[in-house]
Structures are given as structure tokens and as C-alpha cells.
């Protein structure tokens, strides 16, 4: 669905934001795009949607060049930015105005998602809603568009605790084998048990891009003993609950993936982790 080759991007001539970036993403998955602040996660989403143009290299989205911004491509992309636009329309009118641009939009689904988020009055104006409420409306709208590609930049920012759970349920239910969802976030716990492919950006490059099943096969997440010296340990974090470790999974053991631990392991022990895959 998305193929990026040798991508270079910078906002100014002096500093490169993305350098020699290569990425291939398939449909039917929820991709978690993780990275520290300023690594270029949002910019990568903008490049995929054609909002900024590559300086070098190519981006192919569903067979389209995003920078051309053809309506056939745009009607199959929904981008939920971190900062939402100021829209003076009511929810009802927003649907009336923007839904016809998306041929697969489902009004029933939109209502269903709004109900699930406890947003009941469609006569409410979007600019009068809180940030969290507005975000819920946009998430519901995005899912209801049934676009092949959904890009979400920090979607759980501003959502209350119950809404984060609802968000996970709705997204999990809304994605099928034809849809591709990319969620960029640094709130990794919000994506627990949701994403099935992890992409990590470090030093303006993609240093890790693996499906969850591969990660579980190759890595073991466990709480170890502080005095124990395990040579299979790649990375460890000392916490109140014990020594959280990421180890090489040589015994094919099952363990619960800790995304935060994995992220920290990748960013500090990049070579050791990547050579296992």
C-alpha cells in the first residue's frame, strides 16, 4: 500500500529531518509509528498524504504520487492531525459537507461511533466542543469514511481514560484486510494490544519495522532478578517492580510485549536489536 524509497526531507537547507528513509507498509494492519519528539513522525505522515513534498526519493501511496493530490487518492486517505482545525460547523453540517467527498462514507457507522464516544448531540458546533470531544468526532468521522488509508497523529492526546479504551475497540473493529492504519504516537501505552506492526524512528531514519508476531518470536520481555546476569539480556530497566528486561528469545517462550520497553531498547541498543531481525 505504501512504498517509500530513499526519501530525503528537510524544512531548511541546513538540517535534514528525514534521511535515506525506506519503508514498505501493507494493508490489513495497524502500524504504530513511534519515535522521540522531533524525529519526523508527523512529517512522515504529511509526506504520505501529500501535504509536503520529498526533496529526494519517492513516496508511492496506493499507486499514486501523493504530492499530485489526486482526488482518487485523497478520497482514500483520512488524516487526523494532532492539532485539529477550527471548524465552525455543527457535527451534522460537517457530515453533510464533507461526507459526500468520501464515496464509502457510512452515516450509520458515524452515528454508531459517536454514540460509542457518548457524543449524542449532532447539533453541537465543533468549535464549541472541548479538544477531546472534537477529537472524538474527528476519529468517528475518519473511521466512518472507510478510506483505505487512515493516518492518525497522536490520536489519544486529549482523550479521557474511558475514551482511550473506546478508541482502541473502535479502531480494532474498524480495520479490515483492505485498510491500513498508521498511528503516530509517543503515548505507547495507549496502543497496547492495538497495533500489530511497530515502526520506530530514530535519528531521522526508520530503524525498526517489524510485525508483533516477529517481535514476540525473536524477543523475550520479562522481569528478571537484579543479581542475575543473563547474557541473553539486550536491554534492561530497573524499576520498583524489578528489572524489566528485553532478551533474545532463544527458547521460543511466549511473553507479553511491552512496547515502551521495546522502544527504549531499540533507541538505546539499536544495532543489537536490529541484527536479530
Amino acid at each position, binding site marked *: 500500500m505504501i512504498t517509500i524509497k530513499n526519501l530525503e526531507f528537510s524544512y531548511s537547507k541546513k538540517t535534514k529531518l528525514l534521511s535515506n528513509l525506506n519503508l514498505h507498509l501493507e494493508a490489513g494492519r495497524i502500524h504504530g509509528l513511534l519515535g522521540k519528539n522531533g524525529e519526523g513522525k508527523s512529517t512522515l505522515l*504529511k509526506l504520505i*498524504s*501529500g*501535504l*509536503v*513534498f520529498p526533496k529526494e526519493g519517492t513516496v508511492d501511496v496506493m499507486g499514486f504520487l501523493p504530492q499530485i*493530490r*489526486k*482526488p*482518487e487518492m*485523497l*478520497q482514500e*486517505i483520512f*488524516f487526523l*492531525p494532532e*492539532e*485539529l*482545525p*477550527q*471548524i*465552525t*460547523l455543527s457535527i451534522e*453540517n460537517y457530515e*453533510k*459537507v*464533507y461526507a*459526500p*467527498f*468520501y464515496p464509502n462514507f457510512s452515516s450509520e457507522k458515524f452515528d454508531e461511533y459517536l454514540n460509542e464516544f457518548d457524543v449524542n448531540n449532532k447539533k453541537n458546533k465543533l468549535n464549541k466542543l472541548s479538544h477531546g470531544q472534537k477529537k472524538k468526532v474527528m476519529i468517528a468521522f475518519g473511521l466512518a469514511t472507510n478510506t483505505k488509508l487512515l493516518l492518525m497523529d497522536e490520536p489519544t492526546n486529549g482523550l479521557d481514560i474511558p475514551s482511550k479504551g473506546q478508541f482502541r475497540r473502535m479502531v480494532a473493529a474498524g480495520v479490515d484486510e483492505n485498510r491500513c492504519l498508521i498511528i503516530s504516537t509517543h503515548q505507547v501505552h495507549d496502543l497496547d494490544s492495538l497495533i500489530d506492526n511497530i515502526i520506530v524512528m530514530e535519528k531521522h531514519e526508520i530503524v525498526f519495522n517489524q510485525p508483533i508476531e516477529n517481535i514476540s518470536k525473536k524477543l523475550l520481555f520479562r522481569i528478571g532478578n537484579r543479581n542475575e546476569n543473563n547474557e541473553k539480556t539486550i536491554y534492561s530497566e530497573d524499576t520498583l517492580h524489578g528489572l524489566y528486561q528485553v532478551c533474545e528469545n532463544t527458547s521460543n517462550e511466549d511473553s507479553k510485549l511491552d512496547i515502551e520497553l521495546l522502544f527504549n531498547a531499540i533507541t538505546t541498543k539499536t544495532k543489537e536489536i536490529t541484527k536479530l531481525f
Partner: protein
Amino acid sequence: MNTNFSFNRLGLLLKRFFVENGQKELTFWAISIVVFMLMYGPASVVIYITIGGFIFASNMYKSFGYTPGGMHYLLIPATHLEKLVSGIILSTFYFLTGVLISYFIGNTLGTHLGNVIFNLNNTVHFQLFETANEINNISSGSSYLDMFIGFAIVQSIFLLGSIYFKRSTIGKTFLSIIVFSVVIGLIELILLKLNFDTTSIQSQNINISLLEVKSMFPGLEVVGEIIKYATVPFFWVVSYFRLTEKEV
């Protein structure tokens, strides 16, 4: 699916404008009717239409003024051409139609209200159009066309400014016009200096009538006509390419 231009998508873009700005538009036209009721003389009407026009055109792509708005607009599934054409229709044709309807209503209401309040017996005069004929002393059709072209040129320049500049589009467009005028003025001075060895026309006795100029440069009139009719499309084309290059 038509990849270049779809009337359906254009209609959706226009609908979007009216649903989003319906109340603001109604308020503006209501104010315009009141203004035209109170206005006397064509000059003030022309000034009102011109200023109102370029403010309207400058706000056509105001969503580019802040990043989330620009992103939202660029991601609307419509071609750049459809987005530009909707802007042209609204800033040039819709605004002019709206302002003329307001002028007709305002002028008619104003005259009748004046007759009732001040016990007068005035007939309704649309001085805006009468003046155009008197000044140009030519057929009204041609005069109206010139008026429209003048209006459309201003609108097309400010429409481009609205796409080109991120913020303070009116001020920056004005500044660009001033800079452009200064450059043209300097070129004129240089040409005067080279041809007549002076920098001022007033100080020289250059007795060249318009007819003589036309005979000296036979293609001049044609060039003038081309510039007159090509200016608006030129700015529309530049706006189109600017829109395709727009990054947010």
C-alpha cells in the same frame, strides 16, 4: 471518475463554502444593502465594491493562514483546479452578483424610504451604471465589460495573494503591488532617460498625440488589448500553479 475536473466536486466545494459561511454571508449582504441605502454618488459605491471585493478575495484561502486549516483544506478530495475554480467563482462572480443585487435593493429601498421620510418624489437612479456611460462615452456593453475586467483584475491579484501568502494577505498583496509599481516606474524612468535623456515627462516638450503614438507603434493597441484580457487569466494560472505547489 474524472480526474481533472468534476462539476459534482465543484458543487460540493461551493456547498461547503455556503454551509460554512452562510450566516456571515447573509450578515454581510444585509449590511451592504443598508450601506447602499445610505450611499449617494457612484464613487463611494465603486470604492465599497472594490474594498469589499479584495477583502473577500483575500479571505478565499484563509485556511492556509494556520497549519491545521491548510492541511484540512488541501486534503479535501478535489483537484487543485476545482479548488481554484470555486475560489474564482466565489470571489469574482458570486461577489459581484451579490454586491450588485445589494446595490439594486439598497438603492431602491433608499430612494423610496427617502421619499416617504422627506416627502420627496425621487425616481430610482442607478448612478453606478449611468456614470460608466458618461465617462467612457461609448456603448454601455463595452463600458460594463471594462468595469468588470478592472474588478476581475483586482480580484485575481488578491486571490493569488490569498494562496501565496500565509498570513496578513491583504497587507502583503498591497505591498507586492507597490513594489511592482515601483519597479515599473523605475523601468519607465530608465526608458525615458535612454530615449529622451530626461527623467520627467513634464519638463520636456514631447508633442506626441495618441494618434501619433499609435502610428509610431502599430501593434501597441493590440498589445494593450492582449494585456487587458490576459491579465486575469494570467493571475488565475499563476494561482493554480501556486496551489499545486502549496505545502503545509
